[in-house]
């Protein structure tokens, strides 16, 4: 009899002699014993729950296959995670000031939020931009705006993340143009651009053209950066928005990895060598309330990705196999009621991200259910990370929860459940086909509705919302965006547009349309175009004309 069988037998004895009689007299609380995603949770985990568990194949060592314990050999002992607070509002000058403030406060990387018009391919002066300019992020129409955004920030010394998708190619072109103007060589430019179009169709819903041409542009960017901007991550394969749209943790894990498989397949189909681009693929996961489930999710993600890259795509370089990830605390878990409670939620979620081995982290501000965060609220959120990094001792050892019977069992369970979804998507013919069929969209809408009903019935406690409710709460101070800035931005863009040589602009747009049609990589043409101050909206119009507009299937 091996050790595991011995323990299993001993556990059965404990259940019969100690646990069951005890429960008979004093029953357990009548709450659902399951994770936030509905995974059943047992009263106790022992080695008996880890059937077929082999330390070396399941966990291994940090920096080695299958990377369960972490992607780097020293993890936070070598370098703490990057503290990267997402910021952007108003005019480029407003966001530039917030960037400089965050860098002064010890933040280690920049992260840019763009406004809805920029995200959807409209200039500030377009009628569809009315009411939206600078409200949910910074307003960017031309290179002139991007120059103001990064004024006085040396792009060779900071890394910048840009959360932008269907217009990501344009933002990257502008960023590289600013770097060129600063005299920073492209091999020194580092950062990440979200550029994950597949999850747009699944969850975040910012798009211009249909999935096929959208992915083609992504592959252009992967190809271009792998050759010319080697320190840049050209896509951040994102589960965050999938989760925020209402998926379970397992669905987030599965759909994100399925998207990743979609990009790798598309790039391989283009003829790129997998080891030439895979090391620069990065990920982005949501960190929700269920502490252990979130840690298990990140560990399972690393294990699945390593296996997919090695077994399915034949990647050889260890760097191609490691899933590096940004994380963000769950916006959707924040409550408008008793907003200071969000500070506690964010701290616990941030701790889970760190225990899950994240490479970078954004902590949400407590006031974001009311408006974009104030400087004070952002500072508390950043300090939360600094407290975890420098006061708690948590980063001193690698994967400190590794070996926990519960965590390992949960990691295995999540891995198995995610594989079932990935196989289903394979059977449907891949992720683009699955999106066309509305499969992930429907799964998420159903999960979101189920979750809401549980919350409404009080089956899931939301402190301050359906339990421990307080009447007559005092409103909190929040950030206000000056509505006059919209008109100012519109004026600026209009003035700039008339100052250009129209024949030059036309020529650039024609070159771009040609590159779009004949399949050459669009990035060099784009960089030339933005340097001549061709605008984001004008370039997006070319995409609309050449590739057509995406129409969503209505699912609710």
């Amino acid at each position, binding site marked *: 009899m091996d050790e595991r069988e011995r323990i299993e037998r001993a556990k059965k004895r404990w259940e019969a002699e100690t646990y069951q009689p005890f429960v008979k007299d004093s029953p357990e609380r009548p709450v659902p014993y399951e994770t936030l995603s509905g995974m059943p949770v047992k009263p106790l985990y022992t080695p008996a729950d880890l059937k077929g568990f082999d330390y070396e194949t399941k966990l291994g060592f940090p920096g080695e296959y299958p990377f369960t314990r972490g992607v780097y050999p020293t993890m936070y002992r070598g370098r703490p995670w990057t503290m990267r607070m997402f910021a952007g509002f108003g005019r480029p000058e407003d966001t530039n000031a917030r960037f400089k403030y965050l860098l002064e406060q010890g933040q280690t990387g920049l992260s840019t939020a763009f406004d809805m018009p920029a995200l959807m391919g*409209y200039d500030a002066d377009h009628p569809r*931009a009315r009411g*939206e300019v600078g409200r949910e992020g910074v307003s960017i129409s031309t290179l002139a705006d991007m120059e103001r955004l990064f004024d006085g920030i040396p792009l060779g010394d900071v890394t910048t993340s840009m959360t932008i998708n269907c217009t990501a190619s344009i933002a990257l072109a502008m960023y590289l143009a600013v770097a060129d103007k600063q005299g920073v060589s492209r091999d020194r430019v580092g950062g990440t651009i979200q550029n994950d179009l597949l999850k747009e169709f699944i969850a975040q819903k*910012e798009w211009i053209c249909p999935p096929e041409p959208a992915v083609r542009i992504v592959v252009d960017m992967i190809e271009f950066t792998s050759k010319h901007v080697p320190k840049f991550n050209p896509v951040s394969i994102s589960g965050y928005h999938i989760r925020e749209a209402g998926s379970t943790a397992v669905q987030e894990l599965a759909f994100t990895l399925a998207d990743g498989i979609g990009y790798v397949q598309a790039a391989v189909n283009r003829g790129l060598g997998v080891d030439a681009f895979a090391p620069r693929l990065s990920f982005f996961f949501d960190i929700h309330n269920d502490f252990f489930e979130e840690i298990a999710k990140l560990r399972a993600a690393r294990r699945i990705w390593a296996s997919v890259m090695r077994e399915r795509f034949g990647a050889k370089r260890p760097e191609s196999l490691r899933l590096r990830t940004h994380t963000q605390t769950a916006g959707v878990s924040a409550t*408008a009621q008793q907003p200071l409670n969000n500070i506690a939620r964010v701290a616990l979620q941030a701790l889970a991200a760190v225990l899950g081995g994240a490479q970078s982290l954004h902590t949400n501000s407590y006031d974001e*259910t009311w408006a974009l965060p104030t400087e004070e609220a952002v500072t508390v959120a950043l300090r939360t990370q600094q407290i975890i990094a420098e006061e708690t001792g948590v980063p001193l050892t690698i994967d400190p929860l590794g070996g926990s019977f519960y965590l390992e069992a949960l990691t295995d369970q999540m891995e198995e459940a995610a594989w079932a979804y990935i196989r289903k998507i394979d059977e449907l013919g891949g992720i683009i086909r699955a999106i066309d069929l509305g499969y992930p969209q429907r799964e998420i809408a159903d999960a979101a509705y189920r979750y809401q009903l549980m919350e409404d019935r009080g089956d899931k406690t939301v402190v301050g*919302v359906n339990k421990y409710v307080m009447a007559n709460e005092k409103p909190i101070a929040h950030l206000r965006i000056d509505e006059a800035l919209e008109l100012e931005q519109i004026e600026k863009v209009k003035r700039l547009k008339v100052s250009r040589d129209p024949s030059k602009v036309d020529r650039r747009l024609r070159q771009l349309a040609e590159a779009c049609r004949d399949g050459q990589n669009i990035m060099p043409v784009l960089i030339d175009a933005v340097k001549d101050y061709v605008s984001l909206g004008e370039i997006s119009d070319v995409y609309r004309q050449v590739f057509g507009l995406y129409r969503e299937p209505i699912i609710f």
Partner: protein
Amino acid sequence: MAERKVRVVVAKPGLDGHDRGAKIVARALRDAGFEVIYTGLHQTPEQVVATAVQEDVDAIGLSVLSGAHNYLFKRVLELLKEKGAEDIVVFGGGIIPPEDIAALKAMGVKELFTPGTSTQEIVRFVREHIRATV
């Protein structure tokens, strides 16, 4: 003659893609027995009002999480007035700070729901405040 069912259009005006709330509200209203038309994303105020008039609805529920609520709600109200369709009740929800809620209500928005609102509350509101007009 049997009373006609209350018809509601749930709409996502503007460029914002956050549709979790809108879809949940659409489904909850449908499950509560109302007739629901969901517009899908990225609608202009003109498109929303055209749908509302064409579908002869009794109410419009607007969902805005991008901070553009002041412009978009106002524009929908203006367009309804232009079309002589002010009898259509406008309500909505999203990330909307208290002072904006007060201003929007003064402008004619019947009710605004912020995060944490249960679907029952919204169903109750529709039941109590919206009548099917013949």
